[in-house]
């Protein structure tokens, strides 16, 4: 679906490349996450892939064709939602969708149904200037997918959303994946990445430092221990045990046999822990 080889990009007037030889491949029906702190090059790579930044070195192949050889028809096939709402503020939610929809060969037929999907149907005839950031982000999101694209680029898709609406958007992304759509997601939110992405790439200083499935990364970088919180003679206590030969660990067996257990957790590493461990950077 999307293949990137030795991608380099330098801004006009800059002394060094912002993207320094990036390689990755996204398969059809995959959600691929690009993770990194602010300034790591996440937005740059997205803007190069969607054609907003021209003059890259290396190769970007999308839909079996080099990116620079596409005309405007490329935008019939992709959907883009930026991390900030970009809408006609003086127009209503429905007008915002209708005007943009007319630029596509495959426009949606039922705008009310689209707005209903993101909980904006009751506000369809209200001007967007009165919307909260969350409402604007939901409208932004639905507008990006209304022409049924095969490949989508989402930049921080749940930014500014409350937990209920963030879940709504995450569920919609997963539904699209179920329909065979491909998603390129850039975020610094590791929880979102963990919940949605089939594979993630860590981007630091314009280079990919690690790329794998969240599960494989957690296995590789997590501590293979289990932590038990319990009450010992009425006093709260905590112990940690190696997972290997746990069934033969007498101390562990005594605790779970004779103490009141409050919680037991395996000590998986979070993606954030792994990121910090691998890159030495915090995600800000």
């Amino acid at each position, binding site marked *: 679906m999307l293949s990137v080889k030795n991608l380099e990009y330098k801004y006009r007037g800059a002394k060094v490349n912002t993207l320094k030889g990036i390689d990755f491949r996204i398969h059809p029906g995959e959600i691929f996450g690009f993770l990194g702190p602010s300034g790591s090059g996440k937005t740059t790579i997205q803007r190069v892939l969607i054609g907003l930044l021209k003059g890259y070195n290396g190769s970007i192949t999308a839909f079996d064709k080099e990116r620079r050889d596409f005309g405007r028809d490329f935008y019939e096939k992709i959907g*883009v939602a930026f991390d900030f709402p970009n809408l006609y503020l003086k127009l209503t939610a429905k007008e915002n969708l209708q005007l943009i929809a*007319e630029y596509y060969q495959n426009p949606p037929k039922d705008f009310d149904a689209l707005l209903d999907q993101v909980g904006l149907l009751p506000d369809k005839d209200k001007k967007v200037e009165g919307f909260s950031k969350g409402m604007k982000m939901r409208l932004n999101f639905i507008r990006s997918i209304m022409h049924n694209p095969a490949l989508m680029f989402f930049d921080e898709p749940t930014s500014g959303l409350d937990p209920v609406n963030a879940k709504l958007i995450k569920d919609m992304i997963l539904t699209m994946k179920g329909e065979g759509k491909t998603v390129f997601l850039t975020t610094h939110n590791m929880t979102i990445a963990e919940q949605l992405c089939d594979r993630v790439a860590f981007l630091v200083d314009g280079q990919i430092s690690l790329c794998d499935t969240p599960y494989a990364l957690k296995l590789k970088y997590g501590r293979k221990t289990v932590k038990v919180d319990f009450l010992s003679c009425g006093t709260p206590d905590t112990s940690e045990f190696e997972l290997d030969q746990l069934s033969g660990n007498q101390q562990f067996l005594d605790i779970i046999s004779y103490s009141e257990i409050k919680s037991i957790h395996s000590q998986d590493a979070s993606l954030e822990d792994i990121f910090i461990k691998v890159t030495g950077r915090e995600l800000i």
Partner: protein
Amino acid sequence: MRLIAALKSDLKFQFKHGFYTVYTLIAVLYIIILQKIPGGLFKDYTLALIVFSDPAMLGFFFIGGIVMLEKQQGILDYLAVTPLSPQEYITSKVVTLALLSVSASVVIALMTHLSGVNWLLLTISILALSVFFTLYGFMVTLGCRTINQYFFKTVPFLLLTTMPCFAIFIFPHLWIVSLLPNVAGLKLTLGLFLGLPWQESLLYLLILGLWDIVIYKLSLKVHSSS
């Protein structure tokens, strides 16, 4: 089809942001002022100068406001990732603002100068002038991030536009300045209300038409590289 969609979108955007309301008020004001002036050479000159410096040039000012509003709302970024091409985007802006220019000019002239106007020539002339000034304003907006920055940047461009026009009053036989689009436009507009041989009108229209083509291509080039 995309161009028609863009035209609809621009008309709606300009209407909702009050561009048409503002210009209707301005046109009414001009009509009231011109109706107070007794008929004669002075009125014809005043009408020609008003039509040249305002309805014909409104695109120069309005395009800045429109593009800046689109930038502030992030719409320019989003349009760049839709199938709408830069040609369609620019053409739509030029056509909608030319419609406003022509309508305003015709209404002002109709209400204040009932006889002796070649309406077809007036329409074509204002159209050609409007295209030039809108694209000229569009070039100024590129690179500006705020409305204030835009207004600041317009000053030298406006001087560049108006200064050569004075030349035709000081040196009426200096023909070379007529090759400039603003001077050709001013002579054409003066001729609309004061009379001008058709050959001369045609020549100025040709000059303007050529400038329109040049500035359209230049706008596209600058827009694509920005």
